[in-house]
């Protein structure tokens, strides 16, 4: 039996553990340790750091564009169809500018990480290509 807790200001009561309790505790510990294997197995490999860090990559992609845009206000956005994740990442990188998912603004951010922009509106003309699929357009209709 381990020594009971010895704080002088407390009355320690140490009832004897029942055999059932001992068995249940042993099984409980075993199950927890099995689950620990999963915690370890699901951890990223130490040698493969930052491979999935999309936000960091997005910050780098938009850094030059961010410097060319006004510090506040609203800009438009066009990008590849489908997954809205690219748009969320663009907004995250360009905050505190508000990126509206619409071309109806004087300045429009183009985000085409996988393909070249196609079928663009005649009102949009490219101001600058910042590389990595990041482009800046001006909308002639809203000037």
């Amino acid at each position, binding site marked *: 039996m381990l020594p009971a807790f010895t704080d002088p200001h407390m009355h320690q009561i140490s009832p004897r553990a029942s055999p059932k309790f001992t068995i249940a505790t042993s099984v409980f*510990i075993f199950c927890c340790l099995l689950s620990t*294997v999963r915690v370890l197995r699901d951890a990223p490999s130490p040698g493969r750091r930052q491979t999935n860090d999309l936000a960091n990559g997005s910050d780098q992609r938009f850094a030059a564009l961010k410097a060319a845009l006004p510090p506040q206000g609203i800009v438009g956005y066009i990008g590849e169809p489908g997954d809205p994740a690219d748009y969320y990442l663009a907004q995250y990188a360009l905050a*505190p500018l508000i990126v509206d998912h619409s071309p109806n603004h004087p300045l429009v951010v183009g985000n085409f990480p996988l393909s070249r922009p196609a079928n663009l509106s005649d009102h949009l003309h490219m101001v600058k290509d910042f590389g990595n699929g990041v482009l800046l357009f001006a909308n002639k209709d809203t000037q």
Partner: protein
Amino acid sequence: MPLALAALLCIACGFLLVSLGWLCRAPRTDDLLLRASLSVGYGLGIFSLTFFLARIYGVTNLVAVDLVVFALLLVSFLLLRTRAATSAIVSSTRQEIHGPPLLHRILTSAFAVALCVAVYSAILRTLAHPHGDGWDAFAIWNLRARFLFRAGTHWRDGFGPLLFWSHPDYPLLLPGATANFWIYLGHDDPAVPAIIGFLFTFCTVGILFSALSILRGRTAAMLGALALVTTPFFIEQGTSQYADVPLGFFVLATIALLCLHDYDSVNPFYSPRLHALAGLAAGFAAWTKNEGLLFLCAILAAYFLILVSSKILRDASPQPRQERPHDSWISFATLLAAVAPAFLLIAWFKLSIAPPGDLFSDPATTLHKLLDPARYWAVLKWYVKGFIRFGHWLPIPGTLVLLGFYWVAGSREGEEPALGFRSSILALILTLAGYFAVYLITPYDIYWHLRFSLTRLFLQLWPSTIFLFFVSYPGGAKAPVPGR
């Protein structure tokens, strides 16, 4: 260096606030661990509030504001260290189970291994995903922090209708605290929200361990903490920079403090200070996430209901009670007073700054949804499925392991649950019922909504569930408990 100074100031503010309300006499190590763990959350809550209030009033020198808050807390601490707090050394009781020495050694070793693995995994996850793991981290929480920090006087831009998809109605504890640290650094370093997530994760473990150790001894503390650190989903979410684990921290803090009051209620120098701390924790929970507001209402309603029902039962029973009846009402009043500032701040935030939330955006169909039995059946099925699958445990779900443990070891007998414990159980049930109701009326596709959020909602209550389970945990021969 600026980060270390900011962290020191933040935790010192939290420690002073916790110490202001501290009367619980406990073993020194448990007491220190509990206070230190609570201090991190309270400090971050204070940092968030000071940042938000400074932004509202246009104060630019935030460091000065933090220093003033620290000075005020320090002066209050020095002035309010009452005789009762320093001189009352009161005998308290706890019932601890001691198993065979070999079992104790195995448990200690298993806990040490599991904790090391959890810390190792959390560090690797944090390094691999410095901006958070999952869309919500940067599409909601860190995006809001960037707006608060980068926009300066234009900080309200981040709450405009164009950003509806980023849930601008969500409360600001995490973004506010993060932005406050960034002010010290001068740039928006992603390490800050990553460290905050890491701290919330392991301070939750700290509260669980130390509070259980005070209430039920080291065996229960290690079993409870073991169950939490071996929940893979807890470690995964804790480092993902979502708000569910921080919310779970404050829910656990509220419940642990209420239960510690039960433990401390043999104290003849009655003080409702622990209730003040519990109320603050509930307020911080509401300032962390909308579900925290639901929990805040649930804990107040539960406490009130249990108080009223206890009064009815007490009036009908001739047995004397340890705690004087009016003390319980003072406790409830203290709880109400402590949540009031956070409640008012959140109400003002929701009414003045944040756009309307999306959950109640379609009132016309709400009644129709509430009358649809198929929706009840769908949510119920997912609740059962979520309960069984919860936590990503391998290979047996943790919820079933706990149930099995309870079934084999037997129930605890001989003590009537106290007010704080009963209120906490009822509060968790009411919170789960609230989640259920929200799913019923959700404007989204119900299956999509359940699929992407239910397990995280369960996770918010998981540390508290483990805590309450082991507070009432079975095992051991029946022993008399003097003074109860």
